[in-house]
Each structure stands twice: as structure tokens, then as C-alpha cells.
């Protein structure tokens, strides 16, 4: 299945603005992030030393924060849009 990934601010600079990532079978946000980070050697940007997502990293699936879903265990479906961004800073 294909998942659309959009990255913003410092994550856009690391991963690119938008890309489609292909995942096999049943996949979670964790699977997607692992796939996303590998070619960019960017694991440390997303995960802390204990393998948890860093506090300041926001991940949304179809506009909903994964904290309100099942965290990194949130299951993905083909066509989902995942966004990654740091804390907001407009105004």
C-alpha cells in the first residue's frame, strides 16, 4: 500500500516536502517511520534513546494526532496521509 508523507520545517529539510512510501501488508506508524528514516539516517530526529518518539515531534494521520489514535502502533491504510512537523511557531 502507498502512504503519502508530508514533512514540514526541519523535517521537510531532512525528508523532503512530500513523498509516497510503499509498505507491505499491515503496517503501523512505527513501520512507516522506520522506512522513512532509513535512507536519510534520520532516526535520531524522530526517536529518543529509548526508541520513543521525541516529545516535540508531531505526527498526524489524516489530520489526527497519533496521540489521539494508537500512538506509534496506529495502523495505516492505503491512501493515508501522514504529516510530520515540529511544534508550531506562527504569528
Amino acid at each position, binding site marked *: 500500500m502507498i502512504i503519502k508523507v508530508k514533512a514540514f*520545517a526541519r523535517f521537510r529539510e531532512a525528508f523532503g516536502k512530500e513523498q509516497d512510501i510503499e509498505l507491505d501488508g499491515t503496517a503501523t506508524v512505527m513501520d512507516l517511520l522506520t522506512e522513512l528514516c532509513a535512507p536519510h539516517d534520520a532516526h535520531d530526529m524522530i526517536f529518543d534513546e529509548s526508541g520513543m518518539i521525541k516529545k516535540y515531534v508531531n505526527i498526524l494521520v489524516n489530520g489526527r494526532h497519533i496521540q489521539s489514535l494508537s500512538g506509534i502502533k496506529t495502523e495505516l491504510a492505503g491512501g493515508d496521509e501522514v504529516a510530520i512537523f515540529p511544534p508550531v511557531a*506562527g504569528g
Partner: protein
Amino acid sequence: MIEITEEDFKIGELIRKAKHPDAGAVVTFLGIVRDDEIVGMEIEAYTELAMQELGRIRDEALGQFDLTSLDIIHRTGTLAVSDNILLIVCGAPHRKDAFAACEYVIDELKERVPLWKKELSEDGGRWVDG
């Protein structure tokens, strides 16, 4: 009106439009690029989500305060020192609601709307912490 745009806005025109017959006050907030030893600023938005969130904030403000109009415009792209970033225009029968609504919108925008700023300097740039 809510807008995220690369274009500069016409402040006078927006204030003129806020002059509803029932309005006795129009309060504006204009955010501009401050010279913190920078040459400019890059502003980025997750536009679809930012528009949704601005819409929610606008609806909340219209529900909480007695307003005749509320416009929010945020710019994106590369800006120079003193360029306009953000304009909030609140029209209300009385000034207290106009001031309170304006403050509510800017406070919520800074907390909730997916926008990011990168300060550009001679030796590169630095993303502003949220």
C-alpha cells in the same frame, strides 16, 4: 475572512471592510518581521490543516465575543525585516470585545496553527522554537 497567502495584504482595505454599521470599534493586530540580527524570515504552513484550525479559532472567537467581523490573514514564503507576517482585524460594537477577541486569536494561533518560521541570517538559518 481567513487566508494563508504569499501576497502582502492591504491593511486599509481590510479595515474599511470591517466598518459595519453596528461596529463601534475595529482592533487590528499586525505581526511583522523583527530584526533579531537576521536578514529575513521564511514562513511555512501545513496549509490545509492551518486553514481548518484558523476556521475553528475564528468560530470560537465569534462564539465567545460580540463581534461584527473577524479576519485573519497569515503570510508564507520569504519575508524581509519589517515585512508583514500576520493581520487580525476584529470589528465589534464595543472596544472591549474587539481587543479581547484579537488577543484570543493571536494567542490560540501561536499555540495551535501549523505554521513555522525560520530566521534567515548571513550564515544560514534557524527554525524558531514553538
